[in-house]
C-alpha cells in the first residue's frame, strides 16, 4: 500500500542529491560499459581470426609430409618427402567422403616479366584447388585438369603478384618467367587479404603441381595434400581413414609413428581461437573488476549517506515513517542507481564496441551474455546492498529519538 509513496520519497531523495546520484551511478556505468566493450572487442578479434581460418575453405583436411630423422637430425613437417602423388590418387580413388583433392608442392622463387621482377611463393596444385579454397578468379580462367595432366606451362597469379609484375596492364595471356621457364598467365585470383598468421595470401603464383615438380622444384614428392570432404560430419571419419590408408601405403609398422601429419581445419581453427579466447577472458576479467569496484562504490556511498542522513531518518521517523519505509527507501535509491547505471552502461558499452568495430574494421560482436552478466551484477549490487546496510540503518532507526531532539 505504501510502496507508491516510498517510491516517490526515494526519487525525491535522489533528485535532491543530483551530483551524488550521478557520481554514484557513474561507477556502475563505467563498469558495465567496460565489460560489454571488452568482451565485444575480444569476440570481434575472435571472429576476425575465425573468418581468416574460414578463408582456407570449407571442410578441409590437410595432410603434411611428416618429419624424418636422418643421422639424429629431425627436420620438421614437410622435411621428408614421404607423400607421393600416388598417395593423393589413392585418397581420391578409395575414400568415399572425399569430394576434392589437391596435391601441393611449394617453393619460393624470383619471377620476372618484361623489365619487372618479384620474389613470391610458387605453389603447385591440382585444378581442384580453386574449388577447395573457394577462391574465385577476378579475371581469366583457372588452369584445367588437362593442363595438370600435360604439365603445361600455365599459371594463375594472386592480386599482389599481378600488380607487382604487370602494374595496371592486363596479365591474361602474358608470359612470365619462373626460374627462367616461361609460363603463360591464364587468370588472376580475387584478393583474400591477410592470412591468420599475417602473411599476404595474394602474394602467390599457382601452377599445375605436375609442372612445378617437373620444371621448378624438380622433386618427386609432395609437400602436402589438401582434401575436401562433403560434410563437416565426414571430417573425423575421413581423417581416420586417411591415416590408416597412408600407414598401410607407407608400410608403417604398428609400433612406429606416422611419417605424415593429418590436421582438420577445425583443429587449426581451435588452436587459433584458443588464443583469442584467453584474450577475451582476460579483458572481461579486468573489466569485471571495474564493475565490482563500481558496485562497491554504490554501496559505500549509500553507507556513508546513511550515517550522514541519521538526522533526516530521525525526522522521517518523527513524522510517522516505519522502519521498513526507511529501509525500502534506501533500497529503492540503491537499486534505481544501479539500474539506471546498468542501462546507461549498456548503451555506452554497445556504442564503444560499435565505434571500435568501425574503426578497426572488425565484425561488431556484442555478446548478449555480457549484457546479461552486467545486468545481473548491477542487480546483485542492489540486493546485496539490502543486507549490507540493514545493520547501520536499523542502528540509526533505534537511536532516532536522540537525533530528533538535538
Amino acid at each position, binding site marked *: *500500500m*505504501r510502496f*507508491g*509513496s*516510498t517510491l*516517490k*520519497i526515494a526519487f*525525491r531523495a535522489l533528485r*535532491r*542529491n543530483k551530483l551524488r546520484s550521478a557520481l554514484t551511478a557513474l561507477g556502475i556505468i563505467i563498469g558495465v560499459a567496460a565489460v560489454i566493450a571488452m568482451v565485444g572487442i575480444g569476440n570481434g578479434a575472435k571472429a576476425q581470426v575465425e573468418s581468416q581460418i574460414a578463408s582456407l575453405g570449407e571442410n578441409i583436411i590437410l595432410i603434411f609430409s611428416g618429419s624424418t630423422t636422418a643421422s639424429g637430425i629431425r627436420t620438421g613437417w614437410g622435411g621428408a618427402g614421404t607423400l607421393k602423388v600416388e598417395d593423393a590418387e589413392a585418397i581420391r580413388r578409395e575414400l568415399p567422403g572425399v569430394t576434392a583433392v589437391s596435391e601441393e608442392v611449394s617453393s619460393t622463387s624470383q619471377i620476372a616479366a618484361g623489365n619487372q621482377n618479384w620474389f613470391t611463393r610458387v605453389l603447385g596444385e591440382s585444378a581442384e584447388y580453386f574449388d577447395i579454397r573457394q577462391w574465385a578468379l577476378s579475371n581469366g580462367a583457372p588452369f584445367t585438369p588437362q593442363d595438370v595432366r600435360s604439365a603445361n606451362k600455365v599459371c594463375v597469379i594472386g592480386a599482389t603478384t599481378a600488380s607487382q609484375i604487370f602494374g595496371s596492364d592486363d596479365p591474361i595471356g602474358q608470359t612470365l618467367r619462373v626460374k627462367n621457364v616461361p609460363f603463360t598467365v591464364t587468370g588472376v585470383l580475387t584478393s583474400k587479404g591477410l592470412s591468420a598468421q599475417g602473411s599476404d595470401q595474394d602474394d602467390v603464383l599457382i601452377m599445375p603441381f605436375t609442372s612445378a615438380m617437373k620444371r621448378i622444384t624438380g622433386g618427386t614428392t609432395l609437400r602436402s595434400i589438401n582434401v575436401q570432404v562433403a560434410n563437416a560430419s565426414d571430417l573425423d571419419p575421413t581423417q581416420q581413414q586417411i591415416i590408416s590408408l597412408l600407414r598401410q601405403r607407407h608400410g608403417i609398422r604398428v609400433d612406429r609413428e606416422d611419417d605424415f601429419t593429418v590436421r582438420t581445419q577445425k583443429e587449426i581453427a581451435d588452436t587459433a581461437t584458443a588464443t583469442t579466447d584467453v584474450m577475451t577472458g582476460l579483458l572481461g576479467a579486468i573489466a569485471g573488476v571495474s564493475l565490482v569496484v563500481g558496485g562497491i562504490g554504490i554501496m559505500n556511498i549509500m553507507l556513508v549517506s546513511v550515517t550522514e542522513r541519521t*538526522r*533526516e531518518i*530521525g*525526522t*522521517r*521517523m*518523527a*513524522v*510517522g*515513517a*516505519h*522502519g*521498513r*519505509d526507511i529501509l525500502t527507501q534506501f533500497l529503492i535509491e540503491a537499486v534505481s542507481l544501479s539500474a539506471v547505471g546498468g542501462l546507461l552502461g549498456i548503451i555506452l558499452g554497445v556504442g564503444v564496441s560499435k565505434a571500435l568495430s568501425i574503426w578497426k574494421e572488425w565484425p561488431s560482436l556484442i555478446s548478449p551474455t555480457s549484457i546479461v552478466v552486467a545486468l545481473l551484477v548491477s542487480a546483485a549490487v542492489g540486493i546485496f546492498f539490502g543486507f549490507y546496510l540493514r545493520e547501520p540503518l536499523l542502528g540509526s532507526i533505534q537511536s*532516532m*529519538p536522540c537525533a*530528533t*531532539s*538535538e
Partner: protein
Amino acid sequence: MSANGAAVIQLIGVEKTYRAGEMEVRAVRGISLEICRGEFVALMGSSGSGKSTLMNMLGALDRPTAGRYLLDGIDVSQLSRDQLADIRNGKLGFVFQSFNLLPRTSARENVELPLLYGKHQLTNQQLREKADRVLAAVGLQGREDHHPSQLSGGQQQRVAIARALINGPEVLLADEPTGNLDSRTSIEIMGIFQELNDRGITIVMVTHEQDIASYARRNVVMRDGSVQSDIAVAQPLIAKTELGKVATADDQPTA
C-alpha cells in the same frame, strides 16, 4: 486551568529509567498529568529536569518503563514500534528547535512528507493542494517552492509548523520552538501558536524561557524528574500586543 473538554493526554504514574552501563538514570519519576483538549501548556524546567524525556514519551517517540500514557483514549505505552509511528503520523505534530527540515527540498515537499507516510495514498495534485493550503495558513503563501536555505529561521519554523499540522493532529508538540530564533521572530511564532490554539488545537511546548512560557495558558515546571509546580497563567501575554510594543520600541528586546 481551562479544562474545556475531555483529557486528550493522560499520564498515570509514568516513569522512565535509562540504563547507562552500571548506572541507572531515573529521568522521569512517576508523573501523573492530564492535558485537556484545547489547552496550551508550556513545559518548563532546567536541563536534566526530565522535560525532554517526558516530551519524547508524549511524542510517542519513546515508551515509558512504567505507568500508562493514554493519548486520545489509546494506551500508547502498549503499542508496537510501527503502531507508535502511525500515532505520530496521525495524531501528533512535531516542531523542533532546529526545524529539522529536509535540506535542498522545497517548503511544499517538506510539508507533504507526513502525508507520504500516512494511511491514504494521495495523488501529486492532492498533496500539492493540501500542502499549499497549510503553508498559506502559517503565512507562507508564495514561498512554496523555496528551499530551507532560502528561508529565514522564522520562515523555516513556519514550514515546520505547517508540516506538523498537515495531518490534522490532536496535539501539537513543540520542543524549544524558539530556541534558535531572535526574540521578535519568537513572538511571531508564539502568535501563530496562539492563533492555532484559539482554533482549538492542543499545544504542548517545551521551553526554558519564562517570557515564552507566559504566552501559554498553563505552565508545568519540572525538577528532578517530577512535577514541581503546575499553574494556570493568570494573564497570558498576547503575541499581537507584544509585537506592537516591539514595533514601537524598535529594536528593544522584550525581556
